[in-house]
């Protein structure tokens, strides 16, 4: 399979296989006018299988979303066809409006203006809890 290499843009590499579409949706890449390629199940020495997203434009990425969905991902910044920066992703300490609290008794279910905020409560199990009601995030 052939995907043109990009001149100025971003490659999100080492995405956990199967998570590419989720990241595409959460980052709202469908709203971009430029070329965007999602490669699913690419072979990887390190991971076996991985997903890759290529974006042919300079855009700001929400690293918290990436870190939450696939902390194994890396972000390559390409300028004039050259890799100028490789960013490692870390698990974000806090998520704002990335996931939503599903507890019907939580105040965030009735206060429309309230941001849905989750804090990282357990790094190993990647557990996030709602700051208002402490319900586990899904």
């Amino acid at each position, binding site marked *: 399979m052939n995907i043109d290499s990009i001149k100025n843009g971003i490659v999100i590499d080492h995405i956990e296989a199967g998570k590419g579409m989720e990241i595409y949706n959460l980052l709202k890449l469908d709203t971009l006018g430029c070329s965007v390629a999602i490669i699913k199940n690419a072979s990887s020495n390190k991971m076996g299988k991985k997903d890759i997203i290529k974006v042919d434009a300079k855009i700001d990425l929400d690293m918290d979303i990436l870190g939450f969905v696939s902390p194994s991902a890396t972000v390559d910044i390409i300028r004039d066809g050259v890799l100028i920066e490789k960013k490692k992703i870390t698990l974000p300490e806090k998520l704002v409006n990335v996931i939503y609290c599903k507890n019907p008794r*939580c105040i965030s279910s*009735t206060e429309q203006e309230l941001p849905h905020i989750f804090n990282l409560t357990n790094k190993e199990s990647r557990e996030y809890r709602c700051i208002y*009601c402490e319900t586990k995030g899904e």
Partner: protein
Amino acid sequence: MRSVIDIKDLSKEEIAELVSISEDIISNPQKYAHKCDGKKLATLFFEPSTRTRLSFEAAMYELGGNVLSMSDSASSSASKGESVADTAKVISCYADIIAMRHPKEGAPMVASMNSTVPVINAGDGGHNHPTQTLTDLLTIHREKGRFDNLTVGLCGDLKFGRTVHSLISALTRYEGIKFVLISPEELKVPSYVKNTIKENGLEYKQTTDLMSVLPELDILYMTRVQRERFFNEEDYLRLKDSYVLTPEKLESAKIDLSIMHPLPRVNEISVAVDNDPRACYFRQALNGKYIRMALILKLLEVE
């Protein structure tokens, strides 16, 4: 300006300070009678509660302060659709401190994020009720003189009882606490609460039989087993009486056992137990007023 939304907002040292202020208030009430002259407490209760609201209001009056009370949410701005955030912004224009009870979990936290005065969580649904835990801690301290090296039995509904979870979480900060968790299979303590005990290197044991463990307890914290928690009526009928405390059952208990209950009680402690000096649930209710006085003083930074 700080608020108390969760018992974990207070350090072990701050809890010790609140207990010590409460003890001083009990010994010298006159010294505190005008500490909050000119200050106003707003009690915003979006769901019915008599004892907690009256306890807060009595606490403020005994400090010389005044109370602005909203106890019927049907006649309040909430019924017009005002957000908790806006309510907090407005009420902090009128009051020096707010005590809030709300059926939605996290509502007092939202209030504290928007208020310019301290907010005390007076209960948010089934989530937190830090002043109840402070009341329990003051009671343990007054009855036992310490927080460490105690065998604490918690009996009844340990699954849904927020006071139980919060008390366990607070007591795991002290050394030598042994928890005895007494409940029907259906109402056992959730695993995350047991994990908190383990993570703090403390011991616990679980049983369904109150009588077998009663002799070893220093504290027995009773809670109500509610009919609606059971899947079928048979199980409820089978279990409801096994956790009714009677003078006969107490014969095997330690002579200095402290029997606590967050109240209201229904039938889980027989009225005949009330005259036993080991029953301290009504003293516990009184302690609730003193610890709230101490908390108001601390949050208002009154010396």
